[in-house]
């Protein structure tokens, strides 16, 4: 059976694409799937440091596409999470070094060896982005609740549709207290503007920076709300489509438990 190639993209940079890619990939591996995360941001690689694998790079995705090494030589195995692999980007090359045809061929090869291949797209809609989506069967669009991110997401969604990909949306960095005060777009607002299927909602979380500081997977930190949200996203991707989407709330979990017990909403 062949796996799925999922591209994670956003248009705008700095919305949490890399964290989302690393977390969703790691969470899928925790579900028992064989996962390859591919950094397609050629020349500006970051997934390796976020995942804490920067010291173990030998070959990269450019080497694979150009036929300089085998997939198994470039894929770095994560020692903390079983069945999780990273194929890093090249740091020295230019984005133009890859051809869409070459990437598509490698994506198809990867599908034969992994259940999920997660492509981390670079920001923008130029060549690097085009290369990241060329071999994809599915697409995830990440946005934050601010005007520039939502607008760029809309543009990217349009391009994905034109490639017969129907993207699903993850709204990242939600701050429930600000949403409640009317200072931040709610996820409903974002959905209404973009009108695509929702995959998950991720709250703003201090653990994200801390886990990238140390290069440890966010999804292994049990007290991380964002990590928890990404694990649910992975379960929804992995066949549990009926798993309810949790709406981030600013009440403490203690209060939530109490209100649940007493039947408040």
């Amino acid at each position, binding site marked *: 059976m062949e796996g799925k190639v999922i591209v994670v993209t956003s248009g705008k940079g700095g919305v949490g694409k890399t964290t989302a890619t690393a977390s969703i990939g790691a969470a899928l591996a925790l579900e028992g799937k064989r996962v390859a995360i591919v950094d397609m941001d050629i020349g500006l690689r970051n997934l390796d440091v976020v995942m804490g694998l920067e010291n173990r790079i030998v070959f990269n995705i450019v080497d694979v596409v150009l036929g300089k090494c085998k997939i198994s030589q470039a894929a770095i195995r994560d020692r903390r999470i079983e069945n999780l692999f990273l194929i890093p980007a090249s740091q020295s090359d230019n984005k133009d070094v890859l051809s869409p045809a070459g990437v598509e061929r490698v994506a198809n090869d990867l599908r034969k060896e992994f259940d999920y291949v997660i492509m981390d797209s670079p920001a923008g809609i130029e060549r690097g982005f085009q290369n990241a989506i060329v071999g994809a069967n599915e697409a995830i669009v990440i946005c934050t609740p601010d*005007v520039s991110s939502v607008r760029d997401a*809309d543009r990217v969604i349009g391009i994905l549709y034109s490639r017969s990909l129907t993207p699903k949306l993850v709204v990242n960095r939600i701050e429930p207290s600000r949403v409640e005060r009317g200072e931040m*777009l709610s996820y409903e607002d974002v959905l209404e*503007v973009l009108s695509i299927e929702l995959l998950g909602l991720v709250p703003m979380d201090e653990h994200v920076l801390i886990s990238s500081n140390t290069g440890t997977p966010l999804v292994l930190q049990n007290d991380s709300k964002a990590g928890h949200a990404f694990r649910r996203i992975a379960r929804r991707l992995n066949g549990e489509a009926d798993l309810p989407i949790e709406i981030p709330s600013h009440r403490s979990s203690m209060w939530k438990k109490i209100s649940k017990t007493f039947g408040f909403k």
Partner: protein
Amino acid sequence: MFNALFKRFTSQKPSKNTAKKRLQFSLIYDKLEVNDTTLTDLQNDIVAVISKYFEIDKDALELKVKRDDDVSALVFNTPILQVKRKRAS
């Protein structure tokens, strides 16, 4: 502090409403802007349809996107030269 409370309950509209409205407009605009050929095609189609019923001045017509505070509208402006006689079919 009272002032802040007062403000909150009376005049100040949540800024997210403004954000949403501005977004919705800019997305419509982005799409209209992006594709010039779409607008030209649309214009040709509209001309073809109207020409079935009216004789119009094809050189004087204009197709514009108008933006007001609450709505944006597609405005098609053409002088009508003559109404065509309907033929019994």
